[in-house]
């Protein structure tokens, strides 16, 4: 018997969509462990988001404190570890977001827990499948510590659905807060009206072959026509053509939309690691020998300068005909 402490990130009064993947995992884990799901919300605004969390979990714990105005792994980790112990958790989980990846291993260290990162599935209560070698292989690992820490890959878990009745919300004290000398300085936020890369149904990505940031405008037009998120290769983000948080790949975002456009992207394994799970992949590249064509369902050998405007007008025609 053991409970699942599922760390949930939120955005204003609602959970981030990424948290729903974690809650879906947590439900399956709770069944395997014979315990219940406890959603944990930590930080400024946690109380306000607790009602939304209660739709998905039978129990919600809120930790809000003036000393937690900004996320810091140093201050959050001891809280999560303590609550794991106090609530009989045998699994502590988070989604493999920037925050989940930063925080959970630190929690694991405090709990002496073995950890499985970025899991794709759970095959037994202590056994997990996770991609290794840049997504070139899948490893099944068994972890033998009494408490196990897990981050889940958002694209591999269907979002949790609402429960019939609202869960019970309780608050917990933060306890002594010590940032160990670390301070939050600022966040240079990248604002966008487009859907989140992580859960967009369509993603349009551009690579080095786009040559300049200005040239991405035409891809953005395509994206907006399709309600898509924008993505990019490392080469395009490194060159400063587009914001770094557009990067798709092993070290960027992992995406698995219904439809993925790779435009002027060669298809290096690190890029493929981030988008191979997409349902339909379209590659547009002027060089027919590029590896991107090996994963593409539909390949078009063409220069984007010509192909993308034509694609936009053909899609407009299609939409008009419906």
């Amino acid at each position, binding site marked *: 018997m053991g409970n699942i402490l599922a760390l949930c990130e939120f955005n204003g009064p609602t959970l981030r969509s990424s948290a729903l993947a974690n809650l879906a995992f947590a439900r399956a884990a709770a069944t395997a462990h014979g315990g219940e799901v406890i959603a944990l919300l930590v930080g400024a605004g946690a109380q306000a988001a607790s009602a939304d969390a209660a739709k998905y979990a039978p129990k919600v714990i809120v930790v809000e404190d003036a000393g937690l105005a900004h996320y810091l792994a140093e201050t959050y980790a001891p809280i999560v570890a303590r609550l794991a112990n106090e609530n009989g958790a045998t699994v502590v989980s988070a989604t493999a977001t920037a925050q989940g990846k930063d925080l959970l291993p630190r929690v694991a260290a405090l709990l002496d827990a073995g950890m499985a990162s970025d899991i794709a599935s759970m095959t037994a209560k202590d056994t997990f499948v996770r991609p290794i070698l840049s997504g070139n292989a899948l490893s099944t690992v068994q972890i033998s510590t009494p408490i196990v820490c897990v981050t889940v890959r958002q694209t591999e878990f269907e979002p949790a659905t609402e429960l019939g009745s609202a869960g019970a919300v309780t608050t917990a004290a933060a306890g002594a807060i010590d940032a160990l000398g670390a301070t939050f300085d600022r966040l240079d936020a990248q604002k966008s009206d487009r859907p989140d890369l992580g859960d967009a149904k369509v993603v349009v990505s551009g690579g080095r072959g786009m040559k300049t940031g200005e040239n991405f405008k035409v891809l953005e037009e395509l994206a907006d026509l399709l309600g898509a998120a924008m993505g990019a290769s490392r080469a395009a983000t490194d060159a400063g053509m587009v914001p770094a948080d557009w990067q798709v790949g092993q070290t960027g975002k992992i995406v698995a939309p219904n439809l993925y456009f790779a435009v002027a992207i060669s298809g290096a394994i690190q890029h493929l690691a981030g988008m191979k799970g997409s349902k339909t992949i379209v590659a547009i590249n002027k060089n027919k020998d590029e590896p991107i064509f090996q994963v593409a369902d539909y390949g*078009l050998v063409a220069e984007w300068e010509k192909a993308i405007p034509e694609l936009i007008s053909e899609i407009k025609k299609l939409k008009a005909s419906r």
Partner: protein
Amino acid sequence: MKILVPVKRVPDPTQKAKIKDGHIDLTGASWIVNTFDEYAVETALRLLENGADGTRAAGEIIVVSIGPEDAAKEIRTTLAMGADRAIHVVTKDSEIDALVVVKVLQSIIAAEKPDLVVMGKQAVDGDANQVGQMLAGKLGWAQATFAATLELAGDKKSLLVGREVDGGVEYKRVPVPSVITVDLRIVGSKSVKNGITPESHNYSGEGARLPSLKGIMAAKKKPMVTGKLGDYGAEAAPVIKELSVTLPPPRAAGQIVADVPTLVKKLADEAKAL
């Protein structure tokens, strides 16, 4: 400033993965220094040196690697890049996991008392992305993971770290000592500011520096201490056991389409994606 850089040697990720007896077959594999660790060595060098004239401020860069005997070759590569000395804890890769590595690093840190630990954010064999955060947690030190930029304060007592997070770049200040894990863009032309390298200096290239011939010669004489897990209070008792490895199912073969109208038609009718 004394900087400790943990480095791991990993199979070159561009090789095709092969399976034998349910695990990755590494016979005949080619090996590299984990790319992010190479970036960490580069970062440590940039923290200490004047990039414009190649002189180095007082300080020391110690690389530490826990891995098989053969890994000595990759460790030498980091010495050839410019690290000063190495500690090689010899063990089989199957005998270690993140917690074992952390235990060894903790004991080395207790003895060496570095001002900073700079390491890769992830080893591209297991892609775990754990050791840095776990180490910081165990040490009770602050951490700055996924560093894309670093700025050493004038008094050398803290660093301002730019971290790429969901939705933007977060700037976090961490004291000395702390653990920093580096991301790709740390090797950008102006990503590391140490107050010595002139602001106008641009580092070139997209990655870490290649060892120079002089560096390779010098590396042969640099000290490399070897030891065993037991010498560092650790034992071969991993809590994570790999039961099996499989290759993901290949994607069904795709098709090359002749032109844009055909593409749109197929996306709409065949893939039902539009």
